[in-house]
């Protein structure tokens, strides 16, 4: 009787451990941020790319319209792929596109803008990558759609035709 109880306890313990590990197999161990999070736009200051003037974020996202913040770099190949899609949003009513140039070389960044076009109304500099961290970003490219000081949609990785369509629907 006593032996049976011990066997049952041991078996149930192993089944319990097995189930936990089995469930764990299905969990991804790669970080995935949630793509729609109503977070407030972080406060930060950064130098502007062309004027080299210190700008405060509170003076950027302060109007009643949509803002698209795109983190990009000239060395980032996926940024090159998504650039035509961002260009297609240029001039869209009620949308202002802001660029955050991430850990880049000024000369290369200027060449990138000259070669592929400038969809941004403002480009901010993030030489050491700390501003991107304020946004909760962990790589390039990343894009945030902002309305009334809140991040309403986040795109990790390059934008594509589907995401552009989604942005157009969201800002209608």
């Amino acid at each position, binding site marked *: 009787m006593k032996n049976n109880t011990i066997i049952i306890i041991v078996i149930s313990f192993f089944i319990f451990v097995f189930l936990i590990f089995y469930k764990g197999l299905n969990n991804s*161990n*790669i*970080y995935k*941020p*949630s793509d729609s999070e109503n*977070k407030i736009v972080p406060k930060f200051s950064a130098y502007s790319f062309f004027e080299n003037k210190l700008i405060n974020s509170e003076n950027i996202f302060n109007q009643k319209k949509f803002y698209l913040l795109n983190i990009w770099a000239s060395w980032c190949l996926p940024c090159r792929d998504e650039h035509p899609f961002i260009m297609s949003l240029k001039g869209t009513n009620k949308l202002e596109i802001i660029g955050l140039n991430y*850990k880049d070389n000024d000369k290369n960044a200027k060449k990138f803008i000259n070669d592929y076009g400038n969809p941004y109304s403002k480009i901010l500099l993030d030489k*050491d*990558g*700390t501003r*991107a*961290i*304020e*946004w*909760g970003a*962990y*790589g390039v490219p990343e894009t945030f759609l902002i309305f009334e000081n809140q991040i309403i949609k986040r795109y990790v990785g390059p934008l594509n035709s589907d995401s552009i369509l989604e942005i157009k629907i969201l800002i209608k």
Partner: protein
Amino acid sequence: MKTAKFILLIFLIFSFHSVKADETDLQNKITKNLRCLICQGQSVYDSDSDFAISLKLVVKNKIKDGLSEKEIYAFLTEKYGEWILYDPKFNKNTYILWFLPLLIFLFGGAIVFKKLINIK
């Protein structure tokens, strides 16, 4: 007077050095508990990826700004979620994680204790 000034200067130099050392220790302690999100199985402290280098700088700046260890964790958890911390917080999702080893230890201890009493 000159000697007093000299001693004061030496004292100040050494005290600044110790403040700096404390800051570096705290920075290392915090970054060792942060998961590098783009490199598998490495802490921010161990990694030399772009993301980890920037995060180390952010932690350093926050310490300089006077934020405590807890406040820095809270800031980063708000940005990246609990996943960024190696040491999970004690909440309803982690009760089993924290208590199971203790329960198993008590259960095993009780068995050993009972056996010892029986032997006596």
